[in-house]
């Protein structure tokens, strides 16, 4: 399972490196979304660090939706699904691989958006740096949940509006945990509890994905 996961993750990341969708489309979108948040709040409120954590995770949620769709569309390329089925690859390994690749992409984007939040929304640099570990864990949980919901919503072939409708209720607890942990990091709260909560969420979604991804992909 791990070997297949690393193979699939490597495949997805190589495709990403060649197509450069993350670099030329997703990152600019994320930065633009952050700018729009600031514009929407107005100059008096945009600089308050209390808004920063929530807006950071809102932008990352939008980025996650884009990346989930991209991750599933890759599987929809002609012959890919048939090849995977014919080769008899362990679906749990495929799930882990796709989730890992998505997590790496979200981490890269997350670091850029975090820097953007410091610059544009004036969240404290030290607090943001302290929040980084919990941010990475939450983004990994988003990746695991997103991979599962991406397959549920039809693998990029269903209507585009289906993915948000299905996934938002599942993402909501992750957003709450993420926002609280980032706020605590900015205002000096106890971070270790958020570590545990985020790790439990990650373990839960990975476990559910391992159990159920195969059922979604079997034909």
């Amino acid at each position, binding site marked *: 399972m791990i070997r297949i996961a690393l193979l699939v993750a490597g495949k997805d990341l190589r495709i990403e490196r060649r197509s450069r969708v993350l670099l030329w489309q997703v990152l600019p979108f994320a930065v633009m979304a952050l700018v729009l948040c600031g514009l929407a709040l107005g100059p008096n409120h945009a600089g308050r660090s209390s808004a920063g954590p929530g807006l950071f995770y809102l932008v990352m949620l939008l980025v996650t939706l884009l990346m989930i769709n991209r991750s599933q569309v890759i599987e929809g390329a002609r012959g890919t699904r048939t090849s995977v089925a014919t080769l008899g690859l362990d679906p749990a390994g495929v799930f882990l691989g796709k989730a890992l690749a998505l997590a790496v992409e979200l981490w890269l984007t997350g670091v850029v958006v975090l820097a953007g939040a410091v610059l544009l929304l004036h969240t404290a640099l030290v607090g943001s740096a302290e929040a980084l570990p919990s941010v990475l864990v939450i983004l990994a949980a988003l990746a695991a949940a997103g991979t599962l919901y991406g397959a*549920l919503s*039809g693998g990029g072939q269903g209507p585009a*509006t*289906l993915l948000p*409708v*299905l996934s938002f*209720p599942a993402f*909501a607890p992750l957003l709450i945990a993420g926002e609280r942990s980032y706020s605590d990091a900015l205002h000096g709260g106890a971070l270790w509890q958020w570590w545990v909560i985020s790790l439990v969420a990650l373990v839960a979604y990975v476990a559910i994905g391992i159990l*159920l991804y195969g059922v*979604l992909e079997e034909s």
Partner: protein
Amino acid sequence: MIIKLSQRLLGPVTLVSLALTLWLGLWVTPPDKVQGNLVRLLYVHPGIAWVALYVSFGTSVIASCLYLWKRTRSVVMDRVAHCAMEVSAIFLALTLVTGSIWGRPTWGVWWAWDARLTSTAILLVFALGYLALRRANDDPELCARRSAVFAIIAAINVPIDHFSVDWWHTLHQGATVFNEDGNFLVHGSMLWTLFLSLFAFTMLFFWLLRERYRLEVRRDAAYAATLDEALDQRRREGVH
């Protein structure tokens, strides 16, 4: 014979128990010491919530599990899961509406983002997501499988919703009947009227489920007939 009898009696029993609940709730039972006549929502809101969270959602999840298990996989299980989730969505919406109506004069607000209300709202969104998923796919088997998986994942929220009033400080009250001490915190005629309302709304759920299931069977038959007709027409065109 027992099944036929119970099917025949389901409608009348539902009607009678709902009417009895209405009469007892509005006229016979006394007002509450603190809430006064606002307490009469006790015979509506908990019954609807009980059906929404446990009876209806539970039926859908169990049917989904049975559908995914190869030994019990059948179109009947898929239909039951779908129909039960539709009823659950309606009852979840009614739970939030009746809760708001009760909350405004008692708490002082229509809505609060406490754990119980938030998790119920999330459950409603899950139910609506399930219904959206069902409409998004033409392949019946694929649709059934994905919906079943989605329902099972969504079910994780039910124990969170149930225990939310115990695990966290919430504005929503704790359990009146199924609390950890095992005491009933409702007294006299209010208690058995509450139990009657739980029974009445449960019967209403089964009645709605039955009718919705029958509609689904007719809908599938009509679709199959339309398909047969279209195929016949194509064949006739081929002959000429």
